[in-house]
């Protein structure tokens, strides 16, 4: 909690004194980073600190795909299957990875290690296929490359 308060303090400096609510996304992201996911309690914490209603925090937390309102695996792997990546092999990669991990789209492996899902264009279509692993971008993927990355996740 000390870390949350300290880092939120830094974030709030970027917004006008009377516009604290603007920090909702950064606050939720911070909460997610520290507490793992946005449980109702974390949402409430953000709402309180920013002086908004809990409903506002919930509205934001559920609107954006990078905000997690449910617990997930230790790692989140998001493969882009939008048009640019699919033209470059992402569709096949998606099928292969679901099979390898033994999960459906959005599922978590039985050991709780990886949550896997397909996502929309990551702005990396020139270096397709692309994926995010815990928010880090990986580009120019091949199946071998992906398997190596997945193998490195504890």
């Amino acid at each position: 909690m000390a870390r949350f308060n300290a880092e939120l303090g830094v974030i709030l400096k970027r917004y006008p004194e009377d516009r604290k609510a603007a920090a909702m996304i950064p606050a939720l992201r911070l909460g997610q980073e520290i507490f793992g996911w946005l449980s109702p309690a974390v949402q409430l914490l953000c709402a309180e600190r920013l002086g908004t209603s809990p409903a506002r925090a919930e509205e934001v937390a559920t609107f954006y795909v990078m905000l997690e309102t449910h617990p997930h695996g230790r790692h989140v792997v998001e493969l882009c299957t939008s048009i640019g990546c699919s033209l470059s092999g992402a569709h096949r990669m998606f099928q292969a990875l679901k099979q390898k991990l033994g999960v459906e789209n959005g599922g978590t492996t039985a050991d709780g290690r990886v949550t896997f899902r397909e996502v929309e264009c990551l702005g990396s279509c020139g270096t397709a296929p692309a994926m995010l692993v815990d928010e880090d971008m990986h580009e120019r993927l091949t199946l071998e490359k992906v398997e190596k990355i997945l193998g490195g996740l504890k």
Partner: protein
Amino acid sequence: MSETLILSQRWGKKDSHTLASYRADGGYRSLEKALGMDPPAIVNEVKVSNLRGRGGAGFATGLKWSFLPKDIRPRYLCINADESEPGTFKDRYIIAHDPHMLIEGIAIACYANDIHLAYVYIRGEFKKQAQILHDAIQEAYAAGILGPKVMGRDFSLDLHVHRGAGAYICGEESALMESLEGKKGYPRLKPPFPAVVGLWGKPTIINNVETLANVPWIVEHGGAAFAALGTGKSGGTRLFCVSGHVVRPGVYEKPVHYNLKKLIMEDCGGVVGGRKVKAVIPGGSSAPVLAAHEIDVSMEFDALKAVGTMAGSGGVIVMDESTCLVRALSRISMFYAEESCGQCTPCREGTSWMEGIIHRIEHGEASAADVDRLEQLTGNIMGNTICALGDAAAMPVQSFLKKFKPEFLAHVEGRGCPFGDHAWGLTQESREAVVGEMRV
């Protein structure tokens, strides 16, 4: 013959993202010059330059700046780095390779428009780029380029990075402001336009990253020189993003009116495996598709409009002859169904229906009547929504049907996809083997 490069000239240079490197190449001299000018004179140079917005709509930048009401303060600037239109991947390289050029453009724009607070709204997925930009901004503060006295003058400017969290719709300018205010990204009804009622209810300018990155060059060389690089009502160069089945995908800086076919066949090395082009989307996935015989065309805004499509965000998506266009459209439609904010019925329902019908056509579960119904649906969406996402979803469908209808009907009649397992084209299967170099 050397082509003029405004935006990508310093890319690839060692430490090009640092202040020291930018300064060594003459950086921030334009800001220095601008601070000695009358603000309206700067706006006028931008008008003369024929700079048009690189975010998608191609709106004249100088004109946009002159819509701010004279007597309302504060005013804000929002820099759009949401870059989420499929096929678009240029702003991220400006930020990664030359963040100070963007900061300089922002500072000049703020001085010209009497703005003292600006936010770069960057999509959440660009973590690395957000960090680079944040660090560059801190460098600029430390050097007195930002802060209470910009370059020692009586002008204050604060600039911050605001990271999004994954929502295409937040690239739409009014949704961007809603999101920045700490809400879900629901577009606002217009009018009033942001120039009058924007962020926190105040007059606000929203410009794309690439648009603003041109401003230092315009101040240095003059609006007329920028205009001369282009043609008609569009000045300068542009970053074209080429993806899909070309040999060398990547970002190419070319004059705004560069020829699309030349870009694909010469600069990008044509299609992998020597296959032929089948279809090209010239301006991000929202832009109507062009058939192969239509691509010998200038990519300038008005030129592409004249052939029924749009220059949009500069995202050129190339599909070769081995691609199933029903499959391609099906994936594009899924994107819009996923990304509709759900606020208006024609868009929320319409994008899902379109996705559903196209999916059924692709899998041989639809009738010829469904193909007609699909066409009608696009008409019901177009022009009936709060923001342009509705149109953006309908336009690809209309254009694919118009130009490639036999392919849709073949799916209906053959009760399935004639391309079978290879619907995404042969290139995706051979890409690793064939493609050596990707150019960024």
